[in-house]
């Protein structure tokens, strides 16, 4: 029964992906991509990765889907030029070897190994949190996560440099049900974000999932309730987008001074420090997602001239 479910999910993923890439209409393609992201988050649940399911649904399917849709609308959903290099030769040259290599790797790896699970579980007590994924993310491999936050910041700065900081149009004045439903959703989203953040120390959840929920709530609020959205500039912009990276750096340097190693936490304070970093990362992830989405909208000036 479980195998049947796995086969159906896997086949569904591949089918939706092929359709998303090759559907004739671009609009259909983007909607299918969002469906692909949601199917993928179902697979994450099936494979015991609830953290990823949350992040994939909100960021992978949600934010990436919204950005693709916005860009497709501006580039035009019109006819695309035919495919560059047609046919079987290219398929044989590119796709098949890679698919084959991953397939061979799959069969070669099929034996049982412990992986790094035992190593992580053995030291989990000292990490300051009880959820192994959060322990890896913010303690054992904190360096990776710090750089990830910087990559997100770099993307925000890049998009800002390309699109400028002019005000963006909202979708208002919207008819009454929309603002009212935002008034209901917004407090719920804030509570939900706070809960996910807190919950991340003992169970799936954490800074990025909380940031994604808060960010989408912020986007919804700005779009629906503001006719024009002024983007923050200068220090306010830097502080909101850079908070996570700065908090990481400060805690990391404190570790270097006190414990002799960058991002090394004293065991007794590890839980508190991790929660502080997560709070900062959640806020700047939310801000980053809001900036990335608003940056994708044409500015008020461009819209008037168009």
């Amino acid at each position, binding site marked *: 029964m479980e*195998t049947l479910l*796995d*086969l159906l999910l896997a086949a569904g993923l*591949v089918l939706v*992906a092929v359709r*998303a*890439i090759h559907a004739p209409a*671009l609009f259909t393609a983007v909607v299918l*991509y969002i469906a*692909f992201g949601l199917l993928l988050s179902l*697979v994450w649940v099936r*494979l*015991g*990765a609830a953290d*990823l399911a949350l*992040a*994939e649904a909100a*960021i*992978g399917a949600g*934010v*990436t889907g919204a950005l*693709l849709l916005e*860009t497709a609308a*501006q*580039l035009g959903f019109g006819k*695309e030029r*035919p495919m*560059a290099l047609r046919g079987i030769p290219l*398929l044989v040259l*590119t*796709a098949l070897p*890679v*698919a*084959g290599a*991953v*397939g061979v790797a*799959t*069969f070669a790896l*099929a034996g049982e190994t412990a*992986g790094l*699970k035992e190593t992580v*579980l053995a030291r989990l007590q000292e990490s300051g949190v009880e959820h*192994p*994924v959060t*322990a890896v*993310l913010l303690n054992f491999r904190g360096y990776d*996560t710090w750089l*990830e936050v910087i*990559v*997100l910041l*770099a*993307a925000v700065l*890049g*998009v800002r440099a*390309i699109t400028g900081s002019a005000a963006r149009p909202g979708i208002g004045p919207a008819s009454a049900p929309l603002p009212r439903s935002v008034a209901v959703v917004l407090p719920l989203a804030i509570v939900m974000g706070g809960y996910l953040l807190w919950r991340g120390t003992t169970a799936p959840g954490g800074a990025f999932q909380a940031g994604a929920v808060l960010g989408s709530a912020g986007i919804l609020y700005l779009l629906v309730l503001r006719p024009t959205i002024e983007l923050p500039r200068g220090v306010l912009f830097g502080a909101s987008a850079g908070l996570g990276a700065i908090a990481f750096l400060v805690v990391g340097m404190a570790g270097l001074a006190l414990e002799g190693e960058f991002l090394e936490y004293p065991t007794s304070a590890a839980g508190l420090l991790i929660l502080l970093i997560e709070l900062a990362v959640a806020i700047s*992830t939310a801000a980053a997602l809001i900036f*990335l989405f608003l*940056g*994708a909208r044409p500015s008020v000036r*461009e819209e008037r001239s168009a």
Partner: protein
Amino acid sequence: VTPFLVYGVAAGVLVGVGIHGVATRRNFVRQILALNVMGGGTFLFLIAVAFRNGPETPDPVPQALILTGIVVSVSVSALALAIARALHSRSGRTSLPDEDLE
């Protein structure tokens, strides 16, 4: 047939389909979409590896790695799409010129 084999093979196919899409499709949005499908395949492979000893506590290290990967891939997509929009508003292009290819 274990879940690891099913999803591992599906991951291989997704990476292949994605590469093929990046190489053959011309529209920017379509190429960035295909790149994300490729990324999805890579993520799926690593998460299937994390699960290969069964449902009893999957390996947390690949899971943390992919959580990082999801955030990095939305960053890459957002920047790539911004470049595509900027190119479109300056030149009206929706794809790269193909003089180099032919």
